[in-house]
């Protein structure tokens, strides 16, 4: 309708940046077709892609034990869990694609080492008890990180997180149950559970990222309501949850400095080896090369399936949509 024919008065032009800032400040969600600052878009793509990559790379350490699970029950559970990780990756790639990137492009960046995934998945799974430790600790840390992300300012990411969190709690429980079974089994089984916890505890604490004073992106992410709590806050929350759970498991957390601080009302814990974290991030973790190599190989070896499905679809293209 031409502006002079009537209808509602033309709105005063609002600066899109101002509108974006107002939406974020009012805790409204930003949706894909809204205007957003370029840096916000880039940050969201980077974060969601890294999250998606973590989900699919995370299938490897546990997939390693599917064929050797000790019972049909454990095998069925593990398969369901690894399938969930694939699903979580797909939810997240879908969320990233709403920002105008293509999934194939993101996978290329992962394979070329130009986008990252969580460094936790560069540690090996040496025994079946590691499946338990991953469920309890790694998924526990992931949930602690992801629950606040359900209220993240970017709508599609927040919605994906809601689905992920719902499914993830089964992952953590099955891990806890597995460790609990081992811990209260034979002394060899107990030792196996303890060994797994010894190896996974510190890397799990590193999952929350560098300490607040050296976390480069944090302030901006908090301002954009992508992030709602600092790395150290979430890490503390996780430690406080784990200590009583470890007691129930009758397993020790490998930290001699762990003690209740009456004044703070929190558990104090020892220093984290950030050199190790940086080394794994740089690519020098125990399994970095193996993980990416396996991922690349799976992608290449699956290409004929993707092509065949496309060729089949092209030959069976539906006839024109009938006129209503």
């Amino acid at each position, binding site marked *: 309708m031409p502006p002079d024919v009537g*209808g*509602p008065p*033309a*709105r005063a032009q609002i600066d899109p940046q101002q*509108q974006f800032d107002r939406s974020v400040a009012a805790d409204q969600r930003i*949706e894909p*077709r*809204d*205007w957003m600052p370029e840096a916000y878009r880039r940050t969201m793509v980077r974060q969601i892609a890294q999250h998606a990559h973590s989900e699919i790379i995370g299938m490897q350490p546990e997939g390693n034990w599917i064929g050797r699970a000790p019972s049909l029950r454990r095998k069925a559970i593990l398969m*369901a869990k690894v*399938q*969930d990780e694939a*699903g979580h990756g*797909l*939810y997240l790639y*879908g969320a990233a*694609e709403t920002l105008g990137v*293509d*999934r*194939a492009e993101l996978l290329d960046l992962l394979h070329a080492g130009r986008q990252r995934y969580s460094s936790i998945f560069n540690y090996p799974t040496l025994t079946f008890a590691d499946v338990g430790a991953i469920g309890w600790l790694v998924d526990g840390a992931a949930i602690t990180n992801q629950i606040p992300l359900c209220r993240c300012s970017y709508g599609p990411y927040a*919605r*994906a997180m809601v689905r992920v969190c719902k*499914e993830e709690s089964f992952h953590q429980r099955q891990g806890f149950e597995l460790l609990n079974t081992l811990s209260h089994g034979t002394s060899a089984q107990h030792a196996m559970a303890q060994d797994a916890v010894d190896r996974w505890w510190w890397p799990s604490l590193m999952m929350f990222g560098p300490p607040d004073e050296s976390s480069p992106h944090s302030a901006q992410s908090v301002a954009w309501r992508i992030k709602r709590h600092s790395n150290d806050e979430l890490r503390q929350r996780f430690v406080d949850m784990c200590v009583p759970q470890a007691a129930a498991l009758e397993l020790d957390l490998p930290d001699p400095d762990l003690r209740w601080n009456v004044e703070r009302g929190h558990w104090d814990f020892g220093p984290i080896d950030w050199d190790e974290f940086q080394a794994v991030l740089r690519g020098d973790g125990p399994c970095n090369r193996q993980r990416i190599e396996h991922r690349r190989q799976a992608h290449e070896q699956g290409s004929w399936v*993707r092509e065949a*499905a*496309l060729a*089949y*679809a*092209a030959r*069976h293209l*539906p006839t024109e949509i009938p006129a209503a």
Partner: protein
Amino acid sequence: MTDSATPLAATGWPLWEVFVRSRRGLSHSHAGSLHAPDAEMALRHARDLFTRRMEGVSIWVVPSAAVTASSPDEKDPFFDPAADKVYRHPSFYEIPEGVTNL
């Protein structure tokens, strides 16, 4: 959403929007999107992706490129005509004290 003009071979599998009826009596609602080579595979992928825990009794898949959206900017005056018609809501009308069932 994909650009419908892009040839399939260049982008791989096209994108589909998935709608799931979570149980009888409710309408289908948007669950998310996924890539699939054709409608049949899109349905199968949608089942595996969105209903692993019995979250649905029926699924629709629609090529993303076939969706027509109201506008490129979801805050535009398209919805303004509804904004000044408060008399469409029951709360607009004052009813004397004590009158019930209205």
